[in-house]
Each structure stands twice: as structure tokens, then as C-alpha cells.
């Protein structure tokens, strides 16, 4: 059903039907450079300030300047807004605003639109001078209508032209005004948001954008026959709204780390970019090295000489850093490595999220190289994980790998504003004389921990080396020294492990099915589990933050459930494939780890679709698993 004619002929405002909904998912899509991202972000911020829970996702084309009006060029935002805390991007969209019909096609094909979804579509293309464009538009429009979407054609370009000469710049604020009207958001907050967004520009720019906002709002009030109200909750404590990469950057600042060495790589780069700005005012160095190997080596050199440094990368860069990671493990130099995972192997899918690096994080680099692996489970965790990582790296003189991924990198969510604590920062570098007779690797017999001598400390002179060495840091190829080093480097993991607390089960302590997850998928998994539990299913979930070492108590939890599966965004063989059987099936990374550690028959369900997990998809997978369990 198309409603263009109805609306265009209507001379008076249509009667507006206001529907109360628990939550909605909105997408704003445009060609790259038309500002859908900015519109989506502003809309999300206004919604958050209005007391809605939000989660936003960026829809990013892989290229910088994809061709206009192309399926692959879709750029924009998804905003999920609801009454309470939102922990993921949700399932299908309820309402989509599209600046042209082409950017919609890919979203439709990927199943991102809910049946009957509202589509607010720029109508200028219908009368385009290029007959091919007009034809493509008409065809796509007809297809959308045939699929049952409620398509509302809106002359955005024409309306904006009344205010600005080039609606390509400004249409996004018109759309923002429309969305404020549709979701009953305060226009005053919209004006403030524009002032914040364009704060660095002059008042004229802000005024123009405010007029566009108001025009969009007025147009929607006059012409749209629907609106929605979503519950709000009054904010009582200050909240910060940021994406995962910004939270990592702020976390690094808060951790007291002063040196970051990096090489540009998607999707990790924005962490270092943000950090560069922060260090400009606070002091500190972000070094863009000549390559990933050099970035890692630089960070190790900086750490060695004083305070722990960080290097930030994504999959391919993480592979290149292996040699350096091994060196830091062997010489026992603190180092924090952040891997914002993307689709792999090789160059893979640079702009798409995946959890494919777990095994290389755990076991990467040659030889026995024990290191700590921490996976952030949400945006707030991105902030605090960096503080934890720095402290562990320095306490244990070892490497801490922090795994994030593309789906947290650009997703935004409010969380309570962190309250700064001096304890987050590292103490000043020790420059006191080393006691006579003290040895550089004076490993504690039980824990493997030792006090590192830092350049500048009189009496502590020694040469660290990546070669097998004895307690004096002298090259030592003898069997006893070799095993002495291996043993103590390994013991440090056990020493840390003894301090970790077991994660809590989400749901009942026992039941038919336990879902184990790690990293960015926490919100989607718990939403799916909560839904199933509400329907009476005996399902629970467990989310792991420390993956190496694993805290005590996990094995007992696994054994309390009739069936255990992991849910992961990486590859595992499907038992349905003709060649696959129990002798050759490749399990998902975490499943493999849990099976070997706990001797529990842990299954797995995985998806590698290059997009954040949807609670609905997980729900369907869990229902399948429950049905199997019943049959079994």
C-alpha cells in the first residue's frame, strides 16, 4: 500500500494515531556523505536525554566514496530505543528513513526490516531527469510495497530546498525533525543537540540546521498520520553515551598508560585517533609506527623503560604482532595489546565484526607463551577493562590481550559516568637502588612473580633477552634454566587465576540448557535467554570475561545443565554437512577450549554473517537446541 496520493491531496493534517510501544528500532540510511550517520547519532542522543534506553549501530560502507545510489553504499545508523536498558541492536527495524531507494535494497535482502515496517522514502527520484533513475525508483518502490512494507514517499528534497540551496547538506536535520515528531521527542532537545553537534561552527550554520529541524518536525506533524510513544525513565545519575572504541580510549587515559603505539587498521584505528586528541591536552604519546611489528616493538621498549604501554590493532595487525608478544612474554615485560576483532582470516571483512581471534589470542606466537586474555562484554566494560589490563600487566610483568570487536567499536550505549579514582593510575616509576645481591628474575617459587628492575635503578643493570635465560637474565641453554623459566612464567597465570571470581549464571543455577558466550554478544544472548525463560524454558547463560586464565567454578556450572552450548560469532563446522562427523568437526573457539578444559560435551552454535548478533536469531537457535534435547 502506498500512501503518497492520500497525503499529497490531503489539505488538512491527517488524524494522527499515536501508538504506545515498548521499544522501536529505527534506521536512517543514505549515500555516504549525506549525513545519515550524524542524524542517527543526534536522534539517539536526544532519545537518551529523553530518558530512553538506547543502543546504536553504525551501518558503514567498506569504501570511502562508494558510488551514489548503490546497494553497497548504504551508510547510516540503526537506533534501538526503549523504556529500559538496551544491550544490543535488536532484531528487525520498525521504521526506516531512506534518502534513496537503492540504500534500502541491501537491508531488505539481509532481512533487516520487520514485516510491515514503516519506510519513509525520499520521493525526488520518481521524477528524476534520468529515466533510468526514475525507473529504478519506481521498480524498487513497487517491490517494497509488494513486500508489504508501509512506504510513505516524502518530498524531503523539495521541502529542504525552501530553506537551503543544496539539500544534500541539511536533509539529515530535516529527517531528525521528522523523527522527533514521530517519537514525541522534545524539539528543544533537538535544538540543543544541533548546537552541540555543530558547536565548533558559527551561529549561522546552527541556525540553518535548526530551521531544517523545525521544518521536518512541522512537516511530520502536518502530514504523517502516525506517531509512537515509548516509555521513559527519569535519569537520576549522570550517564555517558559513547561507542566502544571511545570507551577504550578513555579507559586507556584513565588507566594511566602514557604511550600507545599503533599502525592504522580498521576497525581499531579510531581508538588511537581519539587517544591522540586526549594526549594532546593531558600529555602522553600516540606513536604511529611504520608497521604493526614496529608498533608492538615500540610499545615493548617503552614498557621496558618505565610504565606499561599499549598497542592497538585488529586481526591482520594482531597476526603481525605475534613475534613481539612472544618477546614480551619471554622477557616478562608488561604489555597491553588491544585487538578489535574483524572478519578474517587474512584481510577478511575489515568493516564487519567477528569473534575469530580467540584461539590466536590464547595460543598465538610460537612456543609456550602464557598470556592473559580478557574479552570485553559491553561498552562500559571497554572503559574499565583497560584499567584492569594495565594493572595486571604490571603486577604480573606479562602480556594482557584485550579482545573487543567491530560490533562494540561503533555501537553506542549510555552507562553511568565513571568516577575518577587515583588508584586507577600506575605509581611513579621505581628509580630506587636495587638491593645488593637481588637478581633480575627473582621468581617467587609459588607465584612466578618477581620485581622488575627498571632502567635508572642503580645496581639493577642487566640485559633482558628473548633467549632462554636464568635468574640473572643471562643466556642459558641448559635444561634446568629452561624449565625454570617456563614454569615460573606459567605459574603467573595460576596466581592471577586464584584471584578471579566465577562469573554469575544469568538465570537459574541448573536446567536444560546453558549458553556460554564471551565478548560483545552478552546483551543479545541474555535478551534471548530472558525471553525464553519468561516462556518457561529452563535456559540460562554464562558470560566469560577472563578467558585465560578461566576462573574456578565454571566446570561445576557446566555440569549442572543437561546440555551446554557456546554461542559465538565465528566459524564452526555444521554437523549437517555430509563430510562432517564427530571425528572431524571443527568446533567454535570457546567450545573447543571448554571441552578440553572441563571434559564436558560442550556444543556450539555460531554465525559469521559479519553483523552483530540478533537476539531473535539466538532465540531460534536455542529453541532448536531445546527441541533436540527433548528428542535426544
Amino acid at each position: 500500500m502506498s500512501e503518497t496520493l492520500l497525503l499529497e491531496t490531503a489539505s488538512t493534517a491527517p488524524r494522527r494515531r499515536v501508538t504506545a510501544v515498548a521499544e522501536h528500532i529505527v534506521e536512517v540510511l543514505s549515500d555516504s556523505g549525506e549525513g545519515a550517520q550524524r542524524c542517527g547519532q543526534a536522534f539517539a542522543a536526544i532519545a537518551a536525554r529523553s530518558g530512553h534506553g538506547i543502543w546504536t549501530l553504525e551501518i558503514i560502507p567498506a569504501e570511502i566514496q562508494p558510488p551514489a545510489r548503490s546497494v553497497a553504499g548504504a551508510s547510516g545508523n540503526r537506533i534501538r530505543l526503549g523504556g529500559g536498558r538496551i544491550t544490543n541492536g535488536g532484531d528487525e527495524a520498525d521504521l526506516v528513513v531512506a534518502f534513496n531507494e537503492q540504500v534500502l535494497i541491501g537491508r531488505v535482502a539481509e532481512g533487516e526490516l520487520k514485516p510491515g515496517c514503516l519506510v519513509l522514502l525520499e520521493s525526488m527520484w520518481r521524477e528524476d531527469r534520468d529515466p533510468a533513475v526514475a525507473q529504478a525508483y519506481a521498480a524498487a518502490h513497487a517491490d517494497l510495497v509488494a513486500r508489504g512494507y508501509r512506504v510513505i514517499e516524502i518530498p524531503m528534497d523539495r521541502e529542504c530546498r525552501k530553506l537551503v540551496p543544496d539539500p544534500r547538506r541539511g536533509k539529515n536535520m530535516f529527517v531528525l525533525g521528522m523523527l522527533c515528531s514521530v517519537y514525541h521527542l522534545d524539539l528543544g532537545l533537538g535544538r540543543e543537540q544541533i548546537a552541540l553537534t555543530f558547536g565548533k561552527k558559527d551561529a549561522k550554520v546552527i541556525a540553518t540546521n535548526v530551521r531544517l529541524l523545525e521544518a521536518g518536525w512541522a512537516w511530520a506533524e502536518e502530514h504523517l498520520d502516525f506517531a509512537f510513544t515509548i516509555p521513559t525513565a527519569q535519569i537520576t545519575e549522570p550517564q555517558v553515551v559513547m561507542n566502544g572504541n571511545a570507551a577504550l580510549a578513555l579507559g586507556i587515559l584513565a588507566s594511566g598508560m602514557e604511550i600507545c603505539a599503533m599502525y592504522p587498521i580498521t576497525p581499531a584505528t579510531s581508538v588511537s585517533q581519539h587517544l591522540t586528541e586526549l594526549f594532546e591536552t593531558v600529555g602522553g604519546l600516540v606513536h604511529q609506527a611504520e608497521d604493526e611489528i614496529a608498533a608492538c616493538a615500540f610499545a615493548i621498549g617503552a614498557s621496558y623503560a618505565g610504565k606499561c604501554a599499549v598497542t592497538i590493532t585488529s586481526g591482520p595487525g594482531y597476526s603481525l604482532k605475534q613475534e613481539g608478544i612472544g618477546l614480551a612474554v619471554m622477557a616478562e615485560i608488561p604489555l597491553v595489546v588491544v585487538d578489535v576483532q574483524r572478519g578474517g582470516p587474512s584481510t577478511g571483512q575489515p568493516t564487519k565484526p567477528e569473534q575469530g581471534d580467540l584461539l590466536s589470542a590464547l595460543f598465538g606466537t610460537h612456543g609456550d607463551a602464557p598470556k592473559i586474555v580478557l574479552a570485553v562484554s559491553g561498552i562500559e566494560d571497554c572503559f574499565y577493562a583497560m584499567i584492569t589490563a594495565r594493572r595486571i600487566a604490571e603486577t604480573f610483568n606479562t602480556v594482557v590481550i584485550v579482545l573487543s570487536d567491530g560490533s562494540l567499536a561503533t555501537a553506542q550505549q549510555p552507562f553511568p559516568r565513571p568516577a575518577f579514582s587515583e588508584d586507577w593510575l600506575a605509581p611513579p616509576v621505581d628509580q630506587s637502588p636495587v638491593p645488593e645481591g637481588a637478581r633480575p628474575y627473582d621468581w617467587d617459587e609459588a607465584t612466578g612473580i618477581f620485581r622488575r628492575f627498571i632502567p635508572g635503578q642503580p645496581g639493577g643493570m642487566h640485559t633482558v633477552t628473548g633467549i632462554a635465560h636464568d635468574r640473572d637474565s643471562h643466556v642459558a641453554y641448559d635444561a634446568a634454566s629452561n624449565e625454570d623459566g617456563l614454569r615460573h612464567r606459567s605459574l603467573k597465570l595460576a596466581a592471577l587465576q586464584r584471584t578471579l571470581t566465577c562469573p554469575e549464571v544469568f538465570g537459574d543455577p541448573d536446567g536444560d540448557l546453558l549458553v556460554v558466550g564471551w565478548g560483545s554478544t552478552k546483551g543479545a544472548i541474555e535478551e534471548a535467554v530472558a525471553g525464553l525463560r519468561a516462556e518457561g524454558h529452563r535456559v540460562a547463560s554464562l558470560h566469560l570475561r577472563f578467558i585465560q586464565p578461566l576462573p574456578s567454578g565454571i566446570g561445576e556450572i557446566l555440569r549442572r545443565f543437561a546440555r551446554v552450548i557456546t554461542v559465538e560469532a565465528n566459524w564452526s563446522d555444521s554437523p549437517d554437512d555430509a563430510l562432517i562427523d564427530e571425528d572431524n568437526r571443527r568446533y567454535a573457539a570457546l567450545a573447543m577450549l571448554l571441552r578440553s578444559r572441563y571434559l564436558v560435551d560442550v556444543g556450539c552454535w555460531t554465525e559469521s554473517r559479519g553483523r552483530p548478533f540478533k537476539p531473535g536469531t539466538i532465540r531460534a537457535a536455542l529453541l532448536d537446541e531445546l527441541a533436540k534435547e527433548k528428542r535426544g
Partner: protein
Amino acid sequence: MIPVADCLLRTAEAHHDLADYRSELVPRWCNGCGDNAILTAMQRLCRDEDLAPEKTVFVSGIGCSSRLPHYMNTYGFHGTHGRALPIAEGVKLSRPDLSVFVSTGDGDCLSIGAAHWLHALRYNVDLTVLLHDNHIYGLTKKQASPTSPLGTKSNTTPMGSVLAPLNPLTITLGVQTASFVAQAVDWIPDLLYQVISAAYRHKGLSFVRILQRCPEFMPGLFDPWIQDPKRMLLLSHADGVTVGPALAKVYPNVRAHDPSDRAAARAIAEVEDPLPVGILYRDPAVPRYEELRHVGELRTVERVRRGLEAELDRFTIWPEDAATP
């Protein structure tokens, strides 16, 4: 980064002798290896410059050359193959108060670490870099290196190497920001000492190629030059190394060369016979990375707190600013 240490007065002026820079380890280099001469020169330099052993760091990669830090009684970092330069850059940028030296070989610097070499010249961090160039991979027992002369018979080139060697001096001088380029040979210790001493005093990355004998795998390689001192070209300048009368008697081929003359330096570097020794090029005006990046600023808890709070403000929704439903 550690300005406090710089502010402390040295309560007692320490004076050191050579033994203070010798570690308890006996060098494991072969008899006649040129690395021994380099080690001796370094220990002498440390003594003469009165470097505090605890404030001195020797960084190296992998190879025979890279064992040098173990034999110095200073702090040392024996790293991974090819990565001495980025490790040393990290040390210096983290701790500008430390004196940082790099020992690297022709395989380490010019092959596996070649990218780091060029970029180190770009950064121009204040490091003294010693390229121990023996024209062969020694620790892995004789494979051709990037500086092996054409036709070198080695385990990987049994019929003789087929690739022409690269010239580390011309390449280094080709990088616009190279600020100190010199060449020394292990068999003229006086000049070796003078060159590394000037290199140490240069603020910026000083690149010193040291032709170093490997009697085990390249016996007699430099004999033509050693046995015929006329084939050595000593570069002399009031602002460079000085050739005293005793040296001039042995090495008659002395040429006045102004190290600020880049074009002349390039022309000298092109020629390997006669073999130039001395400072080819020096430009103290090239900006150093640590200056450009303002490292070493005082970073107080208060400054971090203020920076963090200001940044959090940008992302904050305050209850009082939120809309009332």
C-alpha cells in the same frame, strides 16, 4: 616522562673506570672477531663520557652483533631479529633521560629490519646506532647478507652470490632527515673511537657503519685494505674526526671533508675503494621526534583527572539537562 629523576641532584659525582662497564660475562665472539673492538670502544666511550651505567641502555636485535649488550654492565635489551630500532625508539620516547645505544648487524638492520632502518632515519630519535657490518650472517653459520660482495660463496649461495650488495651509506644519505652518517673500521681503533664519540655527542640518530671482520666465515675479506693502508681514505675536518700525525704516517690518504656538505658526502659514500672512514654527514638542525612530540612533559594525577573529566563531559547526559517526561 620521568622528569623527577632529572630534577634530582647527583649527590656524589660518580667517576667510572672501564671495569664499571664490563659485565661479568666473557664475550663469546670468535678470536679475531671485530665485535671485540667495537665493545672495547663502547666501554671506553662510556667511561670517557662518564655515563651512569644505570642510565645507559644498549638495545640490540639478533645476531653476533646483538650479543653486545650482555657484555656491558649497563641496562640492556637483547630483542628480536630486526627490531632493535623500534624497541630503542620506545625506550627513548618513554625515557628521554636515558642514553640509548643500538647494536645491529647487516642482516638485522639491512634485511629483516630494513623498514625500521629507513623509518628510524625519518624519526631522528636521539640514538647512537652501530651497524656491525661483516657482510655475512655469522650466528646462523654463513649465509649471504645484503652486503655480501657479489660472488660470495656461502651456504645459501654455494656457487657464489648473484645479487649485488646494497650500500648502506648511500641509502642512509638518501633519506632526507638522516642527521649523522659515519663509517669506521674495526682495525683502526683510534678512528673507531673518535667516530662513535662524535656519534654519541650528536643529538639525533647517529648512524655508524662499522666494517667488522669475521675471521670465521669471511676470512681475509678486508685484507686488501688492511695490508695496503693507501687504499683507506681518512675523512678529516676540524668539526669531524682529526687525523693525528701518527695516523697520517700510516694512512697517507687523508681528505678534508666538511660533514655539512651532503653532496660531497654522497659522492664519498658511492666509492668503496679507497674505503672512506670518518664522518660523512652531520646536520644537528634536523628536528628530533622526541622534541616534535613533546615527550617528557610532567603528567600529574591532577592533569589526568582534569583531562578525563573534560572528555567525559563531552559524552555526559546530566539528570538536570534531561527532558522531564
